[in-house]
């Protein structure tokens, strides 16, 4: 059931104003403050925009596909109306001079950004515990994490504050929190959506996607955002979000994601989904991805290397917070960066410096990029036999706040299911598939070949209609 089309038709028919939609969202944001999902509200600008949209509709101007629909953006999207902090102190008061292309495209269709969501600082993390501005709580159990790094966006969607929210996904940062909070989360084909105006993390896997309560809403938002942008030279225009014929698909359940290391109720939910897919006439078989075992090791070489480069610009010179009481230029860099980054940022920057340094480059960075080729080759082989691959989105449901924070590798393992498709640039969608013994949501990850984003959403829609 599409929440977005319900709002749009009410706004266009005059049953409800855009201002009312924004006021309702702001009231819900206020009543769910204890989850700490939002870092700021763009309320003043949102109400002004709502009034403009209402005036346009009254004067008979054509309304956009998202007329009056409120949304939230992760706080690493440059947007007007509030600071863009990336949840890091070094960008504490950063007022974006431009807006991200994704936000501009949504606004052009009448959508209204009402606030900015919490994240792990610079999107480094899998729980939103690495935010410099406090942890976000899971929508189903406040003692548990929201997942991450787009934790705040997942929680506002799950709590019905807004019908959709934007996130970024480099190794699972949309899919994993979507799974932890029982909503849909889409990571598109690499290059489908422009990243212009979004704080960069790891440029070879960074993507932009969204959270919503139905596959149709995901489809609509992705369709509006996707397309070539002259300001992001990695964008492609071959990705389709139109509904596809999905008669008798060949679906592979990746055996390496269904081992004893995975929570048993999570495995059972995936097995049940596989049976349901077979019941719908699809051919479901076991698939094997032996390189899966190496994916996290590849990721934690390649991504820190790219982070080291992308985060070099935060030095207290041109923007962001500059440390006080500085005696030299070198001290200004060193203190500003030490005070402005959280520990996980420093860890990743320094690992990146290590794997890129001249004595270690071949042994780590080059080795990882070659291993990445082997992983991609295995996916290519699998897509000869299968149309779609199925895995759990995460090995467990939401873990407790503080449970994994002392051990970075334990935290990295929360992304073990979502990292492999990211390294290959594949589209992947997390679909809610029931709850575990503690009432916590479980997510299933559907993965397609590059460009086949629309097929994922069509399959998700078929599953919704069958339930």
């Amino acid at each position, binding site marked *: 059931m599409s929440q977005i089309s319900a709002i749009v038709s009410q706004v266009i028919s005059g049953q409800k104003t855009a201002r009312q939609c924004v006021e309702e969202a702001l009231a819900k944001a206020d009543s769910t403050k204890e989850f700490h999902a939002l870092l700021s509200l763009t309320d003043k600008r949102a109400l002004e925009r709502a009034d403009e949209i209402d005036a346009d509709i009254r004067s008979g101007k054509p309304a956009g596909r998202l007329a009056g629909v409120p949304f939230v953006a992760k706080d690493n999207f440059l947007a007007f109306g509030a600071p863009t902090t990336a949840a890091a102190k070094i960008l504490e008061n*950063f*007022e974006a*001079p*431009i807006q991200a292309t994704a936000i501009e495209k949504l606004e052009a269709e009448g959508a209204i950004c009402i606030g900015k969501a919490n994240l792990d600082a610079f999107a480094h993390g899998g729980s939103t515990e690495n935010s410099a501005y406090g942890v976000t709580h899971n929508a189903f159990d406040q003692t548990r994490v929201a997942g991450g790094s787009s934790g705040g966006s997942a929680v506002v969607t799950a709590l019905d504050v807004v019908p959709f929210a934007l996130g970024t996904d480099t190794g699972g940062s949309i899919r994993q929190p979507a799974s932890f909070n029982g909503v849909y989360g889409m990571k598109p084909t*690499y*290059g489908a959506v422009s990243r212009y105006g979004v704080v960069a993390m790891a440029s*070879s896997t960074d993507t932009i996607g969204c959270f919503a309560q139905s596959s149709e809403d995901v489809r609509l938002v992705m369709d509006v955002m996707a397309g070539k942008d*002259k300001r992001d*030279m*990695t964008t*492609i225009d071959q990705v389709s979000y139109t509904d596809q014929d999905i008669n008798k698909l060949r679906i592979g359940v990746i055996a390496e994601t269904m081992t004893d290391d995975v929570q048993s109720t999570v495995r059972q939910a995936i097995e049940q989904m596989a049976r349901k897919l077979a019941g719908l006439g699809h051919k479901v078989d076991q698939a094997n991805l032996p390189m899966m*075992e*190496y994916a996290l*090791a*590849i990721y*934690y*070489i390649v991504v820190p290397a790219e982070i*080291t480069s992308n985060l*070099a610009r935060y*030095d*207290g*010179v*041109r*923007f962001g*917070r*500059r440390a006080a009481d*500085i*005696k*030299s*230029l070198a*001290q*200004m860099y*060193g203190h500003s*960066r*030490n005070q402005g980054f959280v*520990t996980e940022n*420093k*860890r990743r*920057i*320094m*690992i*990146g*410096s*290590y794997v890129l340094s001249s004595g270690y480059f071949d042994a*780590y960075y*080059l*080795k*990882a*990029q*070659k*291993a*990445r*080729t*082997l992983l*991609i080759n295995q996916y290519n082989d699998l897509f000869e036999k299968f149309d779609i691959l199925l895995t759990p989105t995460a090995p467990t449901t939401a873990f407790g706040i503080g449970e994994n924070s002392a051990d*970075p*590798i334990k935290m990295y393992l929360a992304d073990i299911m979502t990292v492999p498709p990211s390294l*290959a*640039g594949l589209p992947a969608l997390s679909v809610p598939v029931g709850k575990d013994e503690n009432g916590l949501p479980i997510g299933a990850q559907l993965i397609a070949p*590059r460009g086949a984003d629309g097929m994922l959403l069509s399959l998700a829609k078929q599953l919704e209609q069958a339930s």
Partner: protein
Amino acid sequence: MTTIVNDDVRQLAALSAIDLSDDEISALQHDIDNILGYVKKLDELDTDGVEPTYQVTDLENVWREDEVEKSPVLDKLLELAPEHAKQQIKVSKVL
């Protein structure tokens, strides 16, 4: 296996332009040593003759005209600098 000691962490911090406290250095020494130990798992793989993957778009040499555009936000950008004067960004003395 590579073992990372505190002096290595100091060197990495210097390369990364981050002034760490001694406490942070010890904590990061432990973490970085563990993480580098974990990623060494890739040594099990035979990658002889395998081409590295640097990007996944298949795009090559995306050309465009090099046209000069006037930035509509020049003043805003200057305002974002921690210190600025006379249309220039101010930093500490270098020489």
